[in-house]
Structure formats: structure tokens, C-alpha cells
């Protein structure tokens, strides 16, 4: 009976998170087009519904009813399964993110490592999509993505290791609680090198501008997405936006205090303690998502050798230095 009860509660939680995430993705695309439109002195979507608010649904129905084209040279089984391999781990890592102090689907001991594992799995889908399409452009996109993700994962992991070292835990809720003890209730000012390295690596990890070389349209048509159409294309799109949400959540939880706000603010304005934690969490997450769009509208794309140079010669040494520094400070100063 007890088992059945927890099962039902968990299914409801999963359904809520799943539904909200899909809605988030729909309006994240709308938000992106509006923000980038304004930054480039355009209006963005205005036609469908009031202020273009129904545009995401129009796009969704369009991609649902499009013809599903399969290239003759494609490896069919892998071509079919590749979008699912991208989407499934990305959606799974939502289950260990604590949205507030109480709301988390699966409270596991290695939460942060679980997210890293999921992030490293979704790259398979991209590589396999490129390989199975049987086209040169898609193939190059897949190869580029493999090289890029492997290089930037190292820097990302090492910069997160400094967070684990500071917090003394890989549980996401304990990392947040450990941050609350610090004057600004966040690690970002203390671990500024690690934070900047993570921020840059997160762009590369989600294939966003300025590191969107796997889908660079000026050289590779659309990279690994070239041969995909209709709903399979939409699945890749969906997972990219969910991955952005997850990267923003990691930055919020590991560097910006998660669902808490700095203690000196609640000391001055004590009524803010009654605001639910999920509000602060989402506020910080959407700041980072806005930052993704901001960068996309501002910075041009890097060349591939430049991308590799930044990853191996700048970010990895910096993150190692940061790790040593944190270890030293933790041992001898704090």
C-alpha cells in the first residue's frame, strides 16, 4: 500500500515536470525569437494569436504534419533511434534537479554526477544522427560534435569538482545548503574562475552560439540535422532547449545558491522568506537562459581550430588551477 502510494505520487510529479518542461520549451523558443528580434531592431513573431503568443503551437503543428523523409543511404534503425537517444537522457536528468527545498522527483546521493552522466550520453544521439544520415554534411557535423563535447566536458567536470570540494558533497541539495553559509549565499564570487569556465563550457556542451559548429549553416547546411525533417527534427530541437534549461539549472544550483536568496536581503526585507523557493530558482534559471539568447544575438561563431584551442589551452588549465586553488584555500585558510 505504501509502495503504491509513493508510486502514484512520483508518477504525478513526473507528469507535472514533463508537462511544464514541454510548455517551457514552447515558450522558450518564443522568448528567444522576441529577445533576438528586439536586439536586432525587429519585432519577432507577431502574427499568430495576440502578440504572436500562439506561434510555438503553430510551429509544433507544422512540424507534426510535415513529411518524414528518410534518405536512401541512411542506416534506418540508427537514423530512427538517434533523436530518442538525444532526448531521453536530457529529459531524465530533470528528475534529479531540486526545483525547491521540497520538490525533487528522485532524491539520490550522486545527483550532480547523474546529470553529468546524462549529459555525456546525449552526445551519442548527435554523433549517430550525423553518421546514420549517409550525407557528408551531416557526417562532419557529427564528428565536430564528438570532438567538441569531449574537449569541453573535461573543463566542465573539473570546474564542477571545485564546487564538490567546497561543499564536500555531490548531492545538489547539500551543495545549495553549503552555499547559504557564505556572505552572499552563493559560490559564484568565490569560485569565479570555475564559474566562468563552466559558463563557457556550457555553451559548447549545448551546441549554442558561439560554439554551434556542429550545425554551422554557412559551412555545413545544418550539420547533423541536415537530413532530418518533420517531427524527428523537432525532437532534436526540443532536447536542445531542455539541455539549455538543465545547464542553467546546474549553474543556478552550483554557483548561484539554487532556491535561496542572499541572507542580507532577507534580513532587511523579512517578508521575502515567505516567497516559495521555486520562484527564486526559476528567476535565476531564466536569467541564464536570457544570457544564452543575449550571447547568440551578440557574438559571431568561432572557427573550429579556435574552439579546440580555447577548450584545451585555456579552459582546462584554468579549471585545474582553480581546483588547486580551492583545495589550498579549503585546507589552509578556511
Amino acid at each position, binding site marked *: 500500500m505504501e509502495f503504491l502510494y509513493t508510486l502514484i505520487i512520483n508518477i504525478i510529479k513526473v507528469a507535472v515536470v514533463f508537462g511544464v518542461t514541454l510548455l517551457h520549451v514552447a515558450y522558450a523558443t518564443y522568448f528567444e525569437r522576441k529577445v533576438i528580434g528586439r536586439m536586432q531592431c525587429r519585432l519577432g513573431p507577431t502574427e499568430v494569436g495576440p502578440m504572436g503568443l500562439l506561434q510555438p503551437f503553430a510551429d509544433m503543428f507544422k512540424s507534426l504534419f510535415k513529411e518524414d523523409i528518410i534518405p536512401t543511404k541512411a*542506416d534506418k534503425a*540508427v537514423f530512427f533511434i538517434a533523436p530518442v537517444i538525444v532526448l531521453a537522457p536530457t529529459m531524465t536528468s530533470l528528475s534529479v534537479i531540486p526545483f525547491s527545498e521540497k520538490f525533487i522527483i528522485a532524491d*539520490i*546521493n*550522486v545527483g550532480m*554526477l*547523474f546529470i*553529468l*552522466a546524462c*549529459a*555525456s*550520453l546525449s*552526445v*551519442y544521439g548527435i*554523433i*549517430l544522427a550525423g*553518421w546514420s544520415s549517409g550525407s557528408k554534411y551531416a*557526417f562532419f557535423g*557529427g*564528428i565536430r560534435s*564528438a*570532438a567538441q*563535447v*569531449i574537449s569541453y*566536458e573535461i573543463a566542465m*567536470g573539473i570546474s564542477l569538482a571545485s564546487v564538490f570540494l567546497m561543499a564536500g*558533497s*555531490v*548531492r545538489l541539495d547539500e551543495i545549495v545548503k553549503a552555499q547559504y553559509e557564505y556572505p552572499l549565499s552563493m559560490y559564484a564570487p568565490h569560485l569565479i574562475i570555475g564559474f566562468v569556465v563552466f559558463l563557457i563550457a556550457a555553451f559548447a556542451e549545448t551546441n549554442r552560439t558561439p560554439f554551434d559548429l556542429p550545425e554551422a549553416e554557412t559551412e555545413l547546411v545544418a550539420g547533423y540535422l541536415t537530413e532530418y525533417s518533420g517531427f524527428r527534427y523537432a525532437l532534436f530541437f526540443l532536447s536542445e532547449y531542455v539541455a539549455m534549461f538543465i545547464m542553467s539549472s546546474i549553474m543556478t544550483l552550483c554557483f548561484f545558491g539554487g532556491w535561496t536568496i542572499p541572507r542580507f536581503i532577507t534580513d532587511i526585507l523579512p517578508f521575502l522568506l515567505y516567497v516559495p523557493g521555486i520562484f527564486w530558482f526559476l528567476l535565476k534559471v531564466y536569467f541564464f537562459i536570457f544570457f544564452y539568447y543575449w550571447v547568440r544575438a551578440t557574438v559571431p561563431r568561432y572557427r573550429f581550430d579556435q574552439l579546440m584551442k580555447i577548450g584545451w589551452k585555456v579552459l582546462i588549465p584554468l579549471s585545474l588551477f582553480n581546483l588547486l586553488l580551492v583545495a589550498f584555500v579549503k585546507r589552509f585558510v578556511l
Partner: protein
Amino acid sequence: MTTVEYFFIYFAVSMVFLSLLIITVKNPVHSILLMLVLFFHIAGLYLFLNAEFLAAVQVILYAGAILVLFLFVIMMLNLKEELVSHRFIGEWPVGVAIGLSISLFCIFAISHFQIKYEGNMTIEIIKTLTNTKALGKILYTEFLLPFEIASIILLIAIVGAIVLAKKEQS
């Protein structure tokens, strides 16, 4: 039988079958995909032993880094079908002999397996400390020397790889 045993039987049987499939499938990319599934099953077995840290590291390192490099190399070589040339398959009796001797060695080693080490880490302590912390504490205090030796061996391998790659270019 308990449910745990049923799960174990599922994992054991499917791991054996997956391993057989990996070496018999013709397309190298498909065999890498099967290997990915195999790594998941290994991680699942670690979870049964309450070793959640090992399970996560298994997926991050083996599935997320090493296997991606395998895939990368196979795609770069563009091996759509496995190379079947006399040079590779002509000497199969030697291969069988080596394989049999290694498996005999393994069987001999496993039959003499004894749980010698008895530390102060009981299951209760591990449960309160969490598996990750317990592993870290033991690895960096009691087993520091073997750990450092292993890391130096890995470092030598990395440096060796770089040296080999450099020679190729000049």
C-alpha cells in the same frame, strides 16, 4: 527467489548475450551501440551493490568518454563493414589459444578469491556516510599509495600517446 535475484539473472544473462553480440555483429558502429547498452547493465549491477558512485563514474567515463572516442575513431576511418582480410582472421587458432588461457587464468583466480580485507567500514557506517564519501576517505588515506601509482601509470600512458602522435607528424 526474491525480486533482487530475478533482476540479477536478467542483468547477468543479458550481459553475456550483449558481449557475444558485440563481437559477432558485422557493423562496427552497431557493436559500439551494443557496448553502450552493456555498460548500462554494468552500471545497473553496481547499483545493486549500493555503489552509486561507481555506477555514475562507469557511465560518465566508460560510456561518456572512452566509448565516444571509439565511435570517433571508427567514424573517422569510415568503416561501414568490418575488414575481413586473411591477415586478421588467418591466425584464429592462436587467438583461441590465447583466449582460452586467459579465461583459464580468470577461472583459477576467481576460484581462489578470498575476502581478505576487513576494514572498519561496516554497512551501517557506509549508509550514514554515503558511498561516495566512504570511498573517497578510504582511497585517500589507507590506499593512497596504490591510488597514486595507478594515476602515475595513467599519466605515463597519456604522455606516451602524445609522443607517438608527435613522431607521426615529423
